[in-house]
């Protein structure tokens, strides 16, 4: 005689250690099997877009820091790129060099957190401690430059808030030498760890056409095997002069586009970032980092959509100017916002424990999802 079964609703979050903040997932489960997942967001809606309308253009920059707080440099970068395109400002070479170095350092720091929490969520706590040690190294570099550990307000429209510290170049090189072996260590510790592979390979497989249609970007899209990177596709700053590879998922231990692929793309990207920094660090041109900052920032009437490659994917700012000192409207295209939509798609048919692994591999930041 067959037993009659019913599906059950399980709430995960908003207070859950693995939801990376205040996300709530409504799981419909049958036993251990997931039937559907519905994310509920908005628990961190901090009204960024309203603030942007009430502030002048430079005053918006500190608020952009707080969108994706793991990659504040990248957020600044996206905003100033958009605003500069609207105003037609050319920034000096030195500024571009420093900006790219900072953005790449930030990418490493952000991926470190992503990897660390992904591991910690599914039970590997040791890499978390190792990787946060290395992240502190990068934070020290930032702190030396602009005095803040996490939220920098460093890139200004047309320039930078501070020049780099005289020791910066030496310390960055030290960091590169220190970090290369760390990646090897990480691979031994976590990447090719049997348990970790068991938990992530063949889990949450994302086919590439679904990824494009939903609009996924960043490591999530590249993990599915498409080499799409805004730095290549739509080059901004000096990325068109730099040499770097775009790592894509290859299904090394499972299927292309599974959690492990998304994870491994991040590891490889950190190495590429080191490569970019190495190309620039010795040849930073001389000059003044504030010479191109306009006295009064008042863009002409019009609209602009500027996008950059943030650690989590394509970060875009859509700015409408009505010719005043305040933006008329700023809309943020947050990569995690779009990537999180995949949750429902990816979890179907997996077990409850896999939800954590999938969520960790998407690497979301609630600050930019809810804005």
């Amino acid at each position, binding site marked *: 005689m067959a037993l009659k079964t019913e599906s059950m609703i399980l709430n995960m979050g*908003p207070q859950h250690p693995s939801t990376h*903040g205040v996300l709530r997932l409504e799981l419909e489960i049958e036993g251990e099997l997931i039937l559907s997942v519905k994310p509920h967001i908005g628990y961190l809606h*901090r*009204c960024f877009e*309203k603030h942007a309308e009430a502030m002048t253009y430079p005053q918006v920059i500190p608020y952009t820091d*707080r969108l994706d707080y793991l990659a504040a440099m990248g957020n600044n970068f996206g905003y100033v790129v958009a605003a500069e395109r609207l105003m037609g400002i050319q920034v000096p070479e030195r500024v571009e060099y420093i900006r790219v170095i900072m953005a790449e350092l930030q990418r490493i720091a952000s991926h470190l957190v992503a990897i660390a929490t992904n591991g910690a969520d599914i039970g590997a706590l040791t890499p978390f401690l190792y990787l946060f040690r290395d992240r*502190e190294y990068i934070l020290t570099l930032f702190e030396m430059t602009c005095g803040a*550990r*996490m939220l920098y307000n460093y890139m200004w429209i047309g320039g930078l808030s501070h020049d780099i510290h005289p020791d910066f170049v030496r310390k960055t090189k030290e960091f590169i030498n220190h970090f290369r072996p760390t990646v090897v260590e990480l691979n031994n510790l976590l990447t090719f760890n049997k348990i970790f592979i068991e938990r992530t390979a063949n889990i949450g497989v994302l086919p590439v056409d679904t990824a494009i249609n939903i609009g996924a970007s960043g490591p999530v899209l590249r993990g599915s095997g498409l080499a799409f990177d805004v730095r290549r596709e739509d080059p901004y700053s000096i990325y068109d002069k730099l040499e770097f590879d775009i790592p894509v998922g290859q299904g090394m231990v499972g299927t292309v586009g599974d959690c492990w692929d998304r994870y491994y793309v991040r590891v490889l990207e950190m190495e590429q970032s080191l490569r970019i920094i190495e190309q620039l660090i010795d040849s930073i041109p001389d000059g003044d980092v504030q010479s191109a900052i306009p006295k009064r920032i008042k863009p002409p009437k019009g609209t602009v959509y500027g996008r950059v490659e943030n650690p989590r994917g394509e970060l875009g700012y859509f700015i409408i100017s009505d010719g005043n000192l305040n933006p008329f409207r700023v809309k943020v295209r947050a990569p995690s916002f779009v990537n999180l939509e995949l949750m429902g798609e990816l979890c179907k048919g997996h077990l409850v424990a896999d939800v954590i692994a999938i969520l960790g591999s998407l690497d979301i930041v609630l600050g930019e999802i809810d804005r």
Partner: protein
Amino acid sequence: MGLLDKEFSDGNIVIARAEDLMNWARLSSIWQLGFGLACCAIEMMATSASHYDFDRFGVIPRNTPRQADAIIISGTVTLKMATRIKRLYEQMPDPKYIISMGSCANCGGPYWEHGYHVLKGIDRVIPVDVYVPGCPPRPEALLEGLLKLQDKIRNESIRKKIA
């Protein structure tokens, strides 16, 4: 007045007031509710990671409010979240302590003026023991906040809770 003032010379026996003993036990193992809200939560994570090592003060994250002694409000509290935080607070057993970390939890922080969906200070919903200023506070500042909380617990009395 340390606990070990009145140690007898042949060791092994310590005389202390029950109050001091209890306070000492309480303050040296503050288990915090493992739960982060916003940017400040990342600094909280950094505090419990390798460089700053929250663990040496006896602070470890517990994932359920029913086993937690303290809750660190680490970030912006929105209206949607405030009701949930209140419920978490009510689920915790007494004695319970609140550290409000960062300007957002203290008073709304950068969002105080135009934040139509931001609660301007967690103390409008639940009582706070220690406020840690900063945006975000450095890990050292959070540690200082914890030391302040320990001081507070050290001076507590069974008869009357110093609220």
